[in-house]
């Protein structure tokens, strides 16, 4: 075959093909936090990472540093770990228009969990609604049982003297009292779904600000 063509084919096969962007990139902001922090006063990257080192020497944390890049992973970080919310991440120093900057991209399964868990609680709510439909027939049968005679409940003279209300026999749970749906209420599921949805919003913003503040303070030696 033609030598130049062979050379071209070999070069083409040796050159790595650019990967197609993963569709997850559209959504990974949900559980990734990225940002940058300027290094104070011409600080070299070695000194920057030396100041950040204590953050990665917590129990359950492993890290590797190559040049101006540090990658870390955390497994079961302790509650007192300031970066406990993150499971892995990359930090690297690069030159920006105003000087050296520390860029970071951190991943948090906790954020992803908080984002998805409202669906779980909505599922529990739907489960209760479904169970109420199955429960309707047996409830009608129990309502047909003859009620026992009402017994007058005694009240001790001390309670009477102190003004406590007269004792009341508890009413048997009937569907009217529990609500139109039935004995399984979907309300707690909806409430917790809403709570976690709000908490996700809070966490996504809060953790982003906290890590930026933490890195800024540590780089400044505080």
């Amino acid at each position: 075959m033609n030598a130049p063509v062979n050379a071209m084919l070999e070069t083409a096969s040796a050159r790595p093909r650019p990967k197609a962007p993963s569709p997850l990139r559209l959504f990974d902001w949900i559980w990734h936090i990225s940002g940058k922090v300027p290094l104070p006063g011409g600080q070299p990257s070695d000194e920057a990472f030396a100041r950040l080192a204590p953050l990665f020497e917590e129990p359950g944390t492993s890290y590797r540093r190559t040049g101006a890049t540090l990658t870390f992973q955390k497994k079961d970080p302790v509650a007192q770990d300031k970066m406990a919310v993150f499971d892995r991440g990359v930090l690297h120093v690069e030159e920006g228009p105003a000087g050296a900057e520390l860029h970071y991209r951190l991943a948090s399964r906790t954020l992803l969990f908080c984002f998805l868990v409202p669906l779980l609680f909505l599922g529990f709510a739907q489960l209760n609604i479904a169970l109420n439909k199955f429960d309707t027939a047996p409830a009608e049968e129990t309502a047909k049982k003859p009620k026992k005679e009402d017994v007058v409940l005694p009240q001790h003279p001390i309670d009477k003297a102190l003004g406590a209300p007269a004792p009341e026999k508890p009413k048997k749970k009937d569907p009217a009292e529990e609500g139109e749906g039935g004995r399984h209420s979907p309300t707690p599921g909806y409430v917790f779904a809403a709570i976690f949805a709000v908490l996700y919003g809070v966490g996504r913003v809060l953790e982003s600000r906290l890590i930026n503040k933490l890195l800024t303070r540590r780089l400044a030696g505080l």
Partner: protein
Amino acid sequence: MSGVRVGNRIIGGQSPVTVGWENVPRVEGGPFKQFFFTWFQPTVLLALVAFWYYAPSSIAKASTAIAIGIGFKILLLLMEWFFPRHESWRLTWKEFITDLFYVGLGYTVLRTVETYIGSDVIIEAVQSSFDWGKLTWFIGLPLLLQAFLISFIFDFGQYWMHRGMHNWYPLWLTHSVHHYITQLNINKGAVGNPVELFLIGLGIGGMFDFLPRAALLAGAIGMAVGTYQHINVRFNTPRWWRFVFNTTEHHSVHHSQDFEASRSNYSSTYIFIDRMFGTCVDGEAELLGMEGGRRMSIREQMTFPFTEGWRAIKERFGRDRLGPMSVPAE
């Protein structure tokens, strides 16, 4: 670490435990702050007892109790934020949502399951089989005495079940995951495997549903005392309270990383049950948890009792049953 001798045991030999009330720090601050943190607990208990004693029947029901419980927890969470006992126990966003997840399980799926195989089934069986006349002698007692008896009998059962969980391996499997918590916060009492939470739920409502106001009073006493087991706030708890009731200090000793310390203070409400049976240790600890303070993820909390149980079964029965492994002859 030498530890301190308490009875026949050495407490604090593996992990630091402060033993003795004279060694436990007190709330620092001005006279108002001291007064507030001394009398907060007794005042709340008295207020709740008075509320449930005098509340009209129209509001003396479980839904009111739940609303009060939620409001009380929010107040205590705020107190934790502004007056933390230990900085190392401070709540973070991650810890808060993790704890709330377990609380959410209790209000949703656990409650659903319990209506079929839990306390509600027992309640219905008891209500349909009991003759009201036979209970007259009990419900004729003064209301507060009824409430105390309900609360005490329940806590007596809780004490032995909890002690059993720390002494019998199958029960320990379900309870062990709860002991991986490294902080005591308001909602951390809910952290644990659903099987254990379900087992605890079996005892609560089953026996006493037919005594509504006394049961509500008993529940209020339990809440006004038991909530402080898991709380990151320091109180100057009065001496008489510490003698009768379980406190944060007692429960922190129970959650300590020290093995012997964890085998103490089993009761939920009345620490004098522990005093009766020689398992009380007065003191406090800050370093909590298991395996040196390793944090257990939600996934592992759910699976650990089963994976660990399977591992234990294989270890115990697998090799013994089959005999020693054969070694190929050379």
